[in-house]
């Protein structure tokens, strides 16, 4: 029994010591980052307030700080907290509660980071940098929330204890036969468990030694690998979503800038000549329309991803004929001919009619946008093994390879100027990809600058009978 206790203590101690080292390193890193950020911002505030006249210097410092930290006390996880001093008076524009106050009283004379325990289980590291610019003194304070680092250590301690119990029980059972060397391997196990607990999912245990050890190592490795895979997948999805939201925010701001600025102009001017009023209100109307179009496309995109599909066997000819009919008036208005190529092949696919037509509409619409008056857009369908390929070909401006690689990204526009004039929102092809995916179909594009573009969608043929 004393052996069991000794193993437990040994393993637990190793785990805890390891977790503590990891923790110290992490905190060091955070503190360094905090001090560096503080210094960098301080330098920049200083540099943009130099070479100003005395009269403007105070407002320059104030403005520079405001520009860099906005109106919020914390911009993000690594947010900045700003304060400045003038003539001995102390202005605190961005108050950040008691925990920061406590941290500040613990700061050394100038600049060192400290870690503090604040209210509500929050931990911060805080750094301060004071600089004098002529008669005024200002001070930049950066703070980082490092609660996550503390949480990780806590979890590591728990898993060390759990791992130690597991290891001591196993080693007690095997005590007679397991050599000292195998016990060393138990420590390997323990460290591996801890690493996983710390979020390092790429840890693996060498699969060697006694049979039961090998099996245990194998099991551990499989579990860790699967956890790593699913984590990476989640991460990629989150990354994609973040990118989408970033782009969306950016796309919304462009029309909003025109609207806000022009509306403000119309509001503040005493008199506005008719001509200018018409032009400026016109800008508001056209930009608002752009936002309207974008919001309806976004709604379509959201629906395409989540709506219940009504899958029915449908003849491809029926689909493309309906699309051609629906699109022809709009294309004719621009003097563009839309035709279905002679000798196209028919086939039956399983699809949601409305959604699939919207896929073809979007591709034809893109082709029309790329075309000049007098040109032709051609629809083709052709059987290729188990699939049927529907293609839309234009003889328009075409794209380089570089552009071709980016076209399905949300909000990407190959030619911004042209696309906006045509009323594009940059969402069409993302929508097509989404719809194609839901039909088990694939999208392809071939293009040559100046020669035109062909976008094809390859759909599996339906094996059963049509309605």
């Amino acid at each position, binding site marked *: 029994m004393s052996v069991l206790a000794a193993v437990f203590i040994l393993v637990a101690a190793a785990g805890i010591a390891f977790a503590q080292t990891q923790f110290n390193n992490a905190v060091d890193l955070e503190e360094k980052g905090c001090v560096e950020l503080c210094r960098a911002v301080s330098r920049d505030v200083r540099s943009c307030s130099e070479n100003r006249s005395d009269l403007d210097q105070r407002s320059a410092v104030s403005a520079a700080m405001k520009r*860099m930290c906005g109106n919020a006390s914390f911009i993000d996880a690594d947010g900045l907290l700003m304060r400045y001093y003038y003539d001995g008076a102390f202005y605190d524009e961005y108050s950040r509660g008691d925990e920061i106050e406590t941290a500040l009283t613990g700061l050394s004379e100038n600049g060192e980071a400290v870690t503090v325990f604040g209210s509500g289980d929050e931990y911060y590291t805080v750094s301060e940098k004071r600089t004098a610019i002529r008669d005024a003194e200002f001070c930049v304070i950066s703070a980082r929330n490092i609660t996550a680092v503390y949480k990780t250590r806590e979890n590591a301690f728990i898993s060390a204890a759990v791992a130690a119990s597991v290891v001591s029980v196993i080693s007690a059972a095997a005590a007679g036969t397991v050599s000292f060397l195998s016990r060393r391997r138990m420590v390997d196990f323990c460290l591996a468990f801890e690493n996983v607990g710390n979020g390092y999912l790429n840890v693996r245990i060498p699969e060697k030694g006694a049979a039961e050890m090998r099996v245990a190592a194998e099991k551990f490795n499989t579990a860790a690998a699967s956890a790593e895979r699913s984590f990476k997948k989640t991460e990629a999805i989150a990354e994609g979503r973040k990118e989408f939201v970033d782009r969306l*925010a950016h796309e919304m701001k462009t029309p909003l800038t025109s609207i806000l600025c022009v509306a403000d102009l119309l509001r503040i*001017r005493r008199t506005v000549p008719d001509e200018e009023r018409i032009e400026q209100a016109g800008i508001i109307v056209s930009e608002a329309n752009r936002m309207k179009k974008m919001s309806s496309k976004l709604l379509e995109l959201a629906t395409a991803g989540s709506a219940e599909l009504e899958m029915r066997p449908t003849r491809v000819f029926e689909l493309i004929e309906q699309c051609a009919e629906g699109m022809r008036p709009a294309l004719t208005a621009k003097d563009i001919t839309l035709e279905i190529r002679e000798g196209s092949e028919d086939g039956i696919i399983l699809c949601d009619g409305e959604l699939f037509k919207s896929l073809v509409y979007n591709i034809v619409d893109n082709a029309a946008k790329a075309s000049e008056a007098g040109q032709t857009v051609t629809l083709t369908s052709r059987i290729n093994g188990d699939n049927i390929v529907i293609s839309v070909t234009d003889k328009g401006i075409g794209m380089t390879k570089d552009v071709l690689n980016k076209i399905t990204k949300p909000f990407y526009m190959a030619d911004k100027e042209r696309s906006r004039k045509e009323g594009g929102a940059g969402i069409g092809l993302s929508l097509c990809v989404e719809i194609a995916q839901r039909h088990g179909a694939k999208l392809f594009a071939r293009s040559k600058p100046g020669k035109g573009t062909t976008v094809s969608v390859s759909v599996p043929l339906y094996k059963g009978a049509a309605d």
Partner: protein
Amino acid sequence: MTRILIVEDDENIAKTIKAAVAVVGYEGYICGNGLEAVELIRREAWDVALLDVNLPDIDGFEVMRRISSRDLPVIFLTARQNVLDKVNGLRLGAEDYIVKPFEALELLARIEVVLRRANKLSSRLAYGEIEVDTASHTVTKNGKKVSLTPKEFDLFVFFLRNADVAVTRERLLSAVWGYEFEGESRTVDIHVQQVRKKLGLYDSLVTIPKLGYRLEKKE
């Protein structure tokens, strides 16, 4: 005349900015891409450049790098809102950084600050029989000195530079007091009343209901 180069690829935003700067009498010139902007800056004389960060060819930061030898005040316009971007822009030597979307008067106020810093604004302003010298901080009416407090002085100068434009209390607060002064728009009202009284502007410094104040241009 103050010449402003507007480097912005979105046509409507560019047009809007041009209209906005025209309100206070600046001449705006629109340019839609970075390389052309570099050329224009090298070839012609400008007072301020408004530089969009996202341009179709080279980005605004790159334009800034290429023209760094010129002594041209630059204000960045951008839809990106992160701290590092701001620091980056200012580190390259930009005078200011304005995040889209923005109001017309906010942009004008920023341009004015930059012009003043670069000493490109006249220090002498006149309004009827009132004369102002921003260098010596003096105001005279019919040749007689009028004593204004520093804030009253700044307020009056702001109205003068934005004559015939209706200004909200919030805008005045941030332009004259320099920071968000929430819930204290009474401060503005009191100062405006003082300016009105001291300079006898009862008919021309008018209150616009639900909006703010406007100093009406002398015919």
